[in-house]
């Protein structure tokens, strides 16, 4: 589904250059539940940003379902994100003025896909927070907010969900619970999950582990 060929990302080209990714080659298949880990500054977030079409590589070729992403304009990248990619953030990033239901609904609206209220409630039910649909983010715990965030990523039936350290702000109990939800969704809907983490317990959930170091893939193994 995803192919990186010699992907390089350099910040400040021509000045004091910082190489976030160096000649990364990787292929991610459908339905994978993959973690990307490594020390701080190893390039995990840059990797996820490029996979998620939020950023573009300085050089190399990126193919998403066979389509060359490297050549797309910002509006075309935006269309890919809204239709095919879901995001889960470390700090949840819910819209504070919207309820749990509305936070999920906005992803559906932006995807331009047809939906009913039941579709939203079903997704909230999938992540175990249907009873919190009318609550604002400030009325929910961190774990509950992250579940809303998962529902928001999942609702539009994307091909890929990217999660940048989704459990970093949670206690271990909540972190495990969130990982279980993510894994269950991966299995139930065959959606590909790629997530970054520092936590060895969280890594245990992954079926594929990719270690980045200094912008290069140091290790890539299946469990």
């Amino acid at each position: 589904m995803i192919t990186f060929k010699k992907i390089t990302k350099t910040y400040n080209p021509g000045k004091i250059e910082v190489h976030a990714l160096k000649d990364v080659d990787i292929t991610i298949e459908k339905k994978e539940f993959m973690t990307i880990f490594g020390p701080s500054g190893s390039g995990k977030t840059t990797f996820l940003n490029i996979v998620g079409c939020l950023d573009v590589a300085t050089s190399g070729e990126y193919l998403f379902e066979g389509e060359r992403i490297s050549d797309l304009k910002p509006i075309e990248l935006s269309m890919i994100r809204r239709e095919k990619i879901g995001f889960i953030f470390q700090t949840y990033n819910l819209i504070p003025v919207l309820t749990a239901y509305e936070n999920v609904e906005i992803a559906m609206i932006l995807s331009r896909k047809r939906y009913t209220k039941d579709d939203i409630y079903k997704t909230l039910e999938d992540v175990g927070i249907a009873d919190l649909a009318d609550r604002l983010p400030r009325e929910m715990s961190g774990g509950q907010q992250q579940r809303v965030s998962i529902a928001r990523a999942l609702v539009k039936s994307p091909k890929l969900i990217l999660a940048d350290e989704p459990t970093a702000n949670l206690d271990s109990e909540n972190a495990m619970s969130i990982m279980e939800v993510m894994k269950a969704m991966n299995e139930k809907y065959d959606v590909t999950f790629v997530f970054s983490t520092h936590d060895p317990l969280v890594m245990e959930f992954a079926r594929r582990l990719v270690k980045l170091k200094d912008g290069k893939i140091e290790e890539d193994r299946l469990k």
Partner: protein
Amino acid sequence: MIGKIFSLASKNVFRARTRTLITIFAYAFGIGMYILMDGLLGGAYKDSVKNIVQKDIGNIKVFSKGYDINKIVPDPEDYFDEKVYREIFNKYEYSVRELQFLTTIVSGEQQYAGVVRGVNPKSANKVFNYKTDVKVGAWLDSLPDDEVVMGELLAKVLKLKVGDNFVIIYRNRDGNYDAYDFTVGGLIYTGNPNVDRVDVFMKLEKAQEIMGAQGLISDIAIRTNDKGAVERIRRDCGGDLTVYTWEDLSQDFLNINKTKQISSAVLIMMIVIVAVIGIFNTILLGMFERQIEVGTLKALGMSEKEINLLFVIEGGIIGLLGSVVGIITGVILNIPFVTIGISLKGFENMDIGYPVEAVFRSTWNPGSMIFALIFGVVIAILASYYPAKRAARLNPVETLRG
């Protein structure tokens, strides 16, 4: 989609409640002042025009060919024989022949400049409805020939009452100075200071007699709603007479009105600029505070155009609320000025540039309110456009980093 963006924008507007409320009130203050000033100036203009047309000039005034419009009244050499044109002006039911001349009025130690207006009492009353304006004494038609009706404010300056005698000094048609004794038979208060402070009314025949201008008049004033009357009279008179509209003869007033409108518009514009800076600031700060949110929306697939629209709608909503509150404020402030009016009593001798009564009333101008509403929203949208554009161009990678 637009509906959802609008819904989100309306929820965002009150996230920084205090800041938004201050902006709305600043905006409302500017719009409210505009509504009030517009009502007051409109009221002053309306009352002034009414006073000029209904109490002093009429809609049309006809002079001899040589009359210099810059002079207060025609010179004696500009008088003309009204009989020659009687057929033309008899067509106009509401017309009055006048003989006007400048005079100095002397009463004991007091003396004051004024204008004598010799008129046919019945015609003058028909055109200007002066009889109802007589406050003390009577109108000319009930007075002997050597009694006059004087503007109440003029009489006050000269300390004259009904029954008092005074002398007028004037230059007669031969160019010699002459004097004549009169008695105050009535005091008139028309609400037009140009009449109440200046005019002394006497019967036309008496004015012609003391002026040595038998059968002559200085002008004819006509009240008519017939828009084609000016051209028709010009054509009928064949160029022997000069025909002016009230606007031609009130250029000073119209210029003052224009100047006051411009200066009040400048004042209001300055208030609005301050309010617009408030909106600009509110949206810009909102953009800085919500960078992560903008990044998230972009990650979810919201386009630059939609993010731009989100912030512009927020500005528009603030502008709409500010305009509506401003219009309501303006209306509430204007109510006492419309119902009770502004009293200029005690300031009758002060020239405010408008020939208005001691109490003049503000007006309602629905057109200005609609304009204020549209203007308020459009300006707010324009003010929020730049911060909205900045928000739309935020790099999601950088904003999501926090």
